[in-house]
């Protein structure tokens, strides 16, 4: 029975790994689940390693901080793997049995040893070209985080599209004060669209498409975490 899912997101500064974690937690919270999200990063710098963590469960969660034993690892940028820009080495260190790795990449980035270790743990690897999807649908690579969110939700069904939509409205629909770096990026993305509604729609479209692709992949590859949380969250 589903009790808790722990998600570790490794990305690079500026990619929205922190925002993605908060959105996922907000969506789960909206859906009536318990959730906690928190980021870990150094002084804010673009392209520097940045991680964030989401814990979602059916009972109150106390645990916080760096996720050492994740069920799901999401890699937002190939450099996390190729240039070892993760907080753990290898990037999947600590992953639990029957876990899931989602990598934003167009090519297989793992070596033979990685494949062996992950398959010994029955961990599935989903190579998902999130940036390509973001450019196609969101028209900006800044939507990569949305595509990754959609992929995670699509495989695990930890939250539905409606809950993600509500979270998106909450985060981007109103004035949001954050640190200087985040504020600058928020501005940059808002400028790309004539209206905020368009930004929200483009993000949601990216999430939805990615969600569908992830469902297809899940159907074909049958990962251990497939639809693990389906039906757990209360529906809207």
């Amino acid at each position, binding site marked *: 029975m589903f009790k808790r899912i722990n998600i570790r997101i490794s990305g690079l500064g500026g990619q929205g790994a922190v925002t993605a974690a908060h959105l996922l937690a907000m969506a789960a*919270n909206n859906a009536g689940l318990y959730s906690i999200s928190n980021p870990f990063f150094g002084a804010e710098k673009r392209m520097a390693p940045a991680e964030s963590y989401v814990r979602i469960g059916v009972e109150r969660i*106390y645990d916080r901080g760096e996720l050492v*034993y994740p069920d799901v690892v999401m890699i937002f940028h190939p450099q996390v793997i190729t240039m070892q820009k993760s907080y753990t080495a290898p990037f999947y260190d600590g992953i639990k049995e029957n876990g899931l790795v989602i990598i934003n990449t167009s090519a297989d980035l793992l070596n033979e040893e990685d494949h062996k270790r992950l398959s010994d743990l029955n961990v599935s690897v989903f190579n998902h070209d999130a940036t390509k999807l973001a450019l196609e649908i969101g028209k900006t690579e800044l939507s990569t985080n949305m595509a990754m969110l959609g992929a995670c939700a699509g495989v695990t069904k930890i939250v539905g599209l409606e809950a993600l939509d509500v979270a998106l409205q909450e985060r981007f629909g109103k004035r949001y004060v954050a640190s200087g770096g985040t504020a600058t990026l928020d501005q940059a993305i808002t400028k790309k669209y004539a209206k905020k509604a368009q930004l929200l729609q483009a993000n949601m479209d990216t999430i939805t498409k990615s969600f569908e692709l992830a469902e297809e992949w899940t159907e074909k590859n049958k990962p251990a975490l497939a639809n693990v949380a389906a039906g757990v969250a209360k529906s809207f």
Partner: protein
Amino acid sequence: MNKPVESPNRVIKSQHVKLGTKNKMDQTYTDINTMFYDAERTPSFMTGSEVIRQAIKVASVGTSVAYPITPQSEAAALIGELYSEGYLDEYFRGESEFAVMGQCAGAAFGGHRVFTTTAGPGTLRAMENFPMWAGSRLPIQVCVTMRGVNSPLSIQPDTLEASYLLETGMLMWHAETAQDLYDFILKGFIVAEQPDVHIPIATMCDGFFVTHTKDTVMLPPEDLCLTPYDPYKSPVPCMDMECPPIRMMRDPFIMKSNYISYSTHASWQQEVRAAVERSRKHTIPLLDGLIDVENIDREILLVSSGTAVSQGREAIRLLEEEGIKVGLVKIKTIRPFPHEEIREATKRAKHIFVPEFNMAGWLAREIKAVVPDNERVIAGPHVAGGMTMPSEVIVEEIKKYLGIKVASNR
């Protein structure tokens, strides 16, 4: 001195403004008992930094001085937003943390309720001001979002800085969660400003684990607010070099070098410490005691404060699955230190583990100093420098100590 004090009426009410009247932001001045215990609270999902803003929004703060300390906490910037909306009377940036704390003193001398935030190296840079605030009996509140202090530089959580504040004469409350932080900030003003207390308070939380973490908090309506600080309730006249706690001669106090000047100083330090202890009778009813306890009849106890308590709660769940039963003591106030409460809560325990987010284990030292048979106290596990303390680490520490073999493969 350390016995719990009964207090039928929770706190002394302010008569400074008429309850039920509105401030310029259309918020109603509300009796704090109503605000904390009767007003309906609704859930919000936000970060600790946002929670600080929400608390200050209803705290009737006069002045806040900011030194930008992002990425540690956005709170100072968020309070700036509140100022621009009209919620505070004064808000400005100091040129350094040291300057900020001095400027806070000025505003408090002037009769304002004062709030500021700091973290890690900033706290240490400002250090001289904290005992100065306490000695001057200024009820300033500083929210300390704790982070590493030593080189190499870290912006991650580490509670070592709290150990530097232990003997400053300030009240020190350590929040476990964003909810604690919200409540502590508002209740902290009330306790710190009581005439028989009237000293500064550090409301502390662990950086990142609270400041950057989104969690559910229950908040009272935003159209209620605390009654403002009443400067005429100050137990001392405005003090400076010219006006010490007792007047000796024409010359400033500091110019003296004789027995009575030393004696004055010594007795004043005692008085500040006595004020810390007197805060108990206001704090106990407001925080429902200085500690929280769960299952303290068990042989093994986890005793800690802040995020370490949260990690302990998860560890207790994990141990429970394996049939190992562990109780919990959460320490909410570091100053006043709950000596008597901890002695009582731990009297049946055979093993007292103190998990901490710092290298020194200062909390374990404090506990060892007050419990009998203190070889029962195991200082650890420790993490430091920004490391996380997975609950599995606490589980391992306990099992290792008990001589239970720990499986290498989780």
